[in-house]
């Protein structure tokens, strides 16, 4: 859904995080929500009520639709957390313990 503009300084992103096990490179100051998008995902979770997929909506900490698991801790606001080297981000798709193949395509 989003791609990165080439930056003027030409510097390559140096931080490595993983989203659902896939590595993504980020710059210091960039958020986990950005990592989610740059990894090609539109949704970071499904809702507990009806299981509908949701992705970050406001990017400023208001809507709580960007909740993901970060380093094993669930329900973190992806748009409010800056990426750190080695961070492990897991999307919260379906029941948390299950690896839902269908959900991973959104």
């Amino acid at each position, binding site marked *: 859904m989003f791609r990165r503009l080439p*930056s003027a300084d030409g510097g390559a992103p140096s931080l490595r995080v993983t989203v659902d096990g896939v590595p993504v490179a980020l710059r210091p100051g960039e958020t986990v929500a*950005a990592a989610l*998008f740059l990894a090609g995902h539109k949704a970071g979770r499904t809702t507990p009520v009806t299981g509908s*997929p949701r992705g970050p*909506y*406001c990017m*400023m900490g208001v809507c*709580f*639709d960007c909740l993901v698991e970060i380093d094993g801790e669930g329900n973190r606001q992806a748009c409010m957390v800056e990426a750190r080297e080695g961070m492990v981000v897991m999307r919260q798709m379906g029941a948390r313990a299950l690896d839902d193949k269908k959900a991973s395509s959104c």
Partner: protein
Amino acid sequence: MTERFDIAIVGAGPAGMAASLEAKMHGLSAVVLDEQPRPGGQIYRRADARDARLEAALGAEYAHGMALTEKFLAAGVAYRPNTTLWDLSPELRLSILRDGRAGEIDASHVVLATGAMERPVPVRGWTLPGVMSVGAAQILLKTTGAVPDKPPVLAGSGPLLYLLAAQYLAAGVPVRALVETQPRANYWDAAPHLLSALWQRKLLLKGAAMLRALRAHGVKRWQGASNLAVEGNEACTALTFDAGGTRERIETELVLLHEGVIPNVHVTMAINCAHDWDATQLCWRPRLDAWGATSVEGVSVAGDGGGIWGAEAAEHTGRIASLGAAERLGKISADARDRAAASSRASLGRLRGARRFLDLLYKPAKGQRQPPDDVIVCRCEEVTAGTLRQVARIGAIGLTQAKTYTRCGMGPCQGRMCGPTVAALVADTRKMPEASVPPYRPRAPYKPVTIGALAASVGTETPTDASIGAH
């Protein structure tokens, strides 16, 4: 540990940064708390990191934000990023959460500079992945230099729509279409205020330049659009709407919605400040005196949290709030305060005149706030407009009742995303003015706080992800 400051400023956007610089100048010890990891607020997000290409796309105002941010960082004001205010007591004790640990700050004066949020835009399908707010997409541009990989559709009303489209075009990113929802009648309501807007030539020229850019790139603009709906099962595939008497459909994977911004009144509502309904901006705002003081002793509001006037005005209200505080705390005389505030007051007068024109021109269409019955209004608890209309009919006269009946507003966003729509629905269903619909009364914690964080503050490590505050 409890720290003490003369003045605690909540929010490091233009209002908060300007307030802290002014406070420092008059000998007040000041601390600035901000939820974000970097200063600048939403308007100057990541203005601390310079990138020439991004600067060029974002324009001159952003460059101004960079200069202000640098000045703020160099001023030596106590600055606490990553810090969430979750309670403010009548004694002006601020309970905070910083990097997962709880703490307290005592202040003699508090300036809330918590800014604005975008008005929720509850159209059919707005919860689908691939639908975001225009502001959210702009934050991705500012913070990450991330842009849509396929041409997006921007839909709704307000200057930000044109601004983001122009910024994308300047960065070489194609835009599929603009679907504008402001009713044509708005032009007539706004026209009498054009004269005051003319004083802000800069603003009008900027608007004209943005529209020129859209034309030059052949971006299709639809006007007077209504009944917007996003199509898709797992994600957005198209936007449909009525315009010019027909149902239009544009295929796109990304729809960006916007219907203006509203003050973030969560904290002022929670501490029981008096508020007034703004019938033009269609939002609540705290009742403020000439120095930004609320009805609660020792608490002022600066910036867009007190009414939407924009970033430039926010710096002025920030300065004015600190001058008011300095006088209240006996650091300066009333005379000195008045003299120091004069230039900011003059600028504010001009800026507000122009703003009135924009507010009337881009006032949201009724339909954008009154979705059809099947549309989800409360994103957290997935409560539809139909359910809310039904409870309004059977007796919910305000938001608190609607919440009791339906759980709307009980999720983690604490009603921030549904409150404005629920109020509009209750008012419309019960045929009462929106000003008379009692809003949600938020309570502390203002944001969800984990029990682990509270425990960590007293030194006992009790890691748990049980969470309170999502009530």
